[in-house]
């Protein structure tokens, strides 16, 4: 059967080009001097340097986690360059001054920037390797009091906000990769929506790793004050290299009373070739704190790339009546591995969470859903609904589900549903008997399977995700 299925999934990675831009790269390796170098390069205040050094000290005492259902050779953390930035020719005041080579890169990527950004109504912050290149729409947002800039810039322009919130949701010693990120992060996005403001447009960051042998450690911090709301989009790509690259990001979201943060990701890091050579290790910590009453944090992710994905976008539902959501599509093919899911920590009263996870596994890949639902003793009348569906394409792949449910308050309602299905010969035969070819059939089956998640994505992202999935799975069906 697998001939058509195979050829459907195995399309070349189209973002695998390298942009020829002079980069400022730190020597490989990690020690206090490198951290001081990064901090000095970025002209950081003393408190941030000590935040980094504290994280580094924590990291030294920690060991790389091994409990996840993925396999890879030990990472040599001394062989990574922890700082790589495009060398700026001069200070950038507007988009016109951005290196044209860089702009061409983003054009190739199809990033909606510049005029296209205006049409799409998207404000874009672009992180190239680890440095924020340009933030569009800053002014328009500033008029309503929204701060949207690179985190390095925010460190200088709004140090009090960064210092107040950085590391409060994901503490420096939270886990091995979060500690590493806290020590060496070079840039990322910062977003602050003041009290009562509904962000008038979707905010967007585009991440790209360009330099071979460099790691990307970006740090995102989003704060929505009382009654504020924002929808934030994140896209990621990387060129194709035979070596593995480490991407260890940290994202922290904070929602105060009645605030609403929606965070959507389409992740298409280079996944390695069809033999499993190369690709990104995507070891990411994402966590939102629904701190205030009636606040809401919603994660939507479409994970199609990376050699290995290890991430659990989570919600801490501290405020009473707060809501946490996690909608995920994870697609793996060839030798990709994914161990992803979420944590919903219910602390406040009447807190509600929804988990919808769709795993699509093809080729020799391996995909696990891992999710924790914890109902604390204080969480009266908490409710959770979880649904985890897996779809297998071919017979060489594996799908696993690891649900953890801890209920410490007996007024809680927790539901968990799971299913596994297979795109099989009979399904494709049914389509073909109606005149529909295998490619279209697979795309229809997959989109139907993922519908509950795609519905959560902003319009243009949903279109992109749909295309990406068909592209990704081309050649895997037969």
């Amino acid at each position, binding site marked *: 059967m697998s001939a058509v299925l195979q050829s459907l999934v195995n399309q070349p990675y189209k973002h695998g080009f390298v942009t020829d831009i002079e980069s400022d790269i730190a020597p490989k390796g990690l020690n206090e001097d490198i951290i001081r170098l990064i901090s000095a390069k970025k002209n950081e205040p003393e408190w941030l340097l000590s935040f980094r050094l504290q994280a580094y000290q924590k990291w030294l005492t920690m060991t790389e986690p091994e409990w996840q259902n993925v396999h890879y050779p030990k990472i040599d953390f001394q062989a990574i360059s922890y700082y790589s930035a495009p060398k700026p020719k001069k200070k950038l005041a507007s988009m016109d001054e951005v290196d044209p080579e860089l702009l061409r890169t983003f054009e190739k990527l199809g990033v909606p920037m510049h005029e296209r950004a205006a049409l799409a109504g998207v404000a874009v912050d672009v992180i190239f390797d680890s440095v924020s290149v340009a933030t569009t729409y800053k002014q328009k947002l500033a008029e309503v009091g929204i701060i949207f800039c690179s985190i390095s810039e925010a460190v200088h322009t709004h140090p009090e906000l960064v210092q107040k919130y950085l590391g409060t949701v994901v503490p420096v010693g939270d886990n091995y990769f979060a500690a590493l990120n806290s020590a060496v992060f070079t840039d990322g996005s910062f977003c602050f929506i003041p009290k009562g403001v509904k962000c008038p447009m979707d905010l967007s960051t585009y991440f790209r790793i360009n330099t071979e042998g460099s790691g990307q450690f970006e740090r995102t911090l989003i704060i929505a004050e009382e009654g504020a709301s924002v929808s934030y989009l994140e896209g990621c790509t990387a060129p194709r290299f035979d070596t593995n690259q480490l991407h260890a990001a940290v994202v922290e979201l904070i929602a105060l009373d009645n605030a609403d943060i929606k965070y959507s990701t389409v992740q298409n890091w280079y996944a390695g070739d069809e033999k499993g050579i190369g690709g990104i290790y995507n070891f990411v910590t994402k966590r939102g704190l629904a701190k205030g009453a009636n606040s809401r944090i919603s994660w939507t992710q479409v994970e199609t790339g990376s050699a290995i994905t290890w991430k659990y976008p989570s919600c801490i539902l501290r405020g009473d009546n707060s809501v946490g959501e996690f909608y995920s599509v994870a697609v793996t093919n060839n030798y990709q591995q994914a161990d992803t899911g979420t944590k919903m920590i219910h602390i406040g009263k009447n807190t509600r969470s929804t988990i919808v996870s769709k795993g699509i596994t093809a080729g020799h890949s391996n995909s696990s859903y891992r999710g924790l639902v914890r109902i604390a003793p204080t969480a009266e009348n908490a409710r959770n609904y979880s649904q985890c569906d897996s779809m297998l394409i071919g017979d060489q792949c594996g799908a696993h589900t690891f649900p953890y449910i801890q209920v410490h308050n007996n007024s809680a309602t927790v539901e968990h549903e799971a299913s596994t299905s297979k795109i099989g010969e009979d399904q494709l*035969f049914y389509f073909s008997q109606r*005149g529909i070819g295998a490619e279209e059939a697979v795309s229809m089956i997959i989109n139907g399977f993922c519908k509950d998640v795609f519905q959560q994505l902003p319009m243009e992202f949903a279109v992109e995700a749909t295309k990406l999935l068909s592209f990704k799975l081309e050649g895997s069906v037969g």
Partner: protein
Amino acid sequence: MIIENSPTILSVQGLRASINGTEILKGIDLTVRSGEIHAIMGLNGSGKSTFAKVLAGHSAYEVTGGIIQFEGKNLLELPPEERARAGLFLAFQYPIEIPGVANTQFLRLAYNTVQAQRGKEELDPLEFDDFVREKMKLLEMKPDFLDRSVNEGFSGGEKKRNEILQMALLEPKLSILDETDSGLDIDALKIVASGVNRLTNKDNATILVTHYQRLLDYIVPDFVHIMQAGRIVMTGGKELALELETRGYDWISANKQQAMAGVRA
């Protein structure tokens, strides 16, 4: 209806097919002309459903001998989707469920694919909606059918009606109905049969694959073929089905030769 000198739609000669090395079809001959309704009857395991799937091009079966001509084309050279586009339709015994895909979306894609092949106009969602609702009346289907996922959570009867609806939309040259009567109560059977009867005409042909005579009370065949162990062992008119009903399949083996004498060449 049997029409003098009507063109041949399907011609099968010496068809052999196996699955995983086991031969199921052991030399089938069958000619179907336009306007005709053929019933293929047989016990479970006689190969009648396999025959239907091989005609439609299911990849699990390997054709090891014989020829199939469909409107003059060599059917065996065509992949299943091209057979469908050429006008061969199979109503499935077990229609597949496709979660998350709205029935209307699936129906429209199938319809437009076949229309495009015929050089005819494709319909946008609104036009298609009007068109499909008309067709649904034929099968007494509720409008909410369109918004539900393809076959998901459908009752047995609803699934079969959905198959016939697709037949109505695609207007095939040859329809093969594989055990369409199984799992239907008598009311549903009548609705499905009347739908099929309204779709048959002098320009198309129908093959009914069935275990029981019951369906043939409502869709009256011109020919009845009995299959046993991968071969058509007896062919007759509609009365053969009734005879089979009273005498049982054991009777066939004993009377093969006699019955074969009356078969049209």
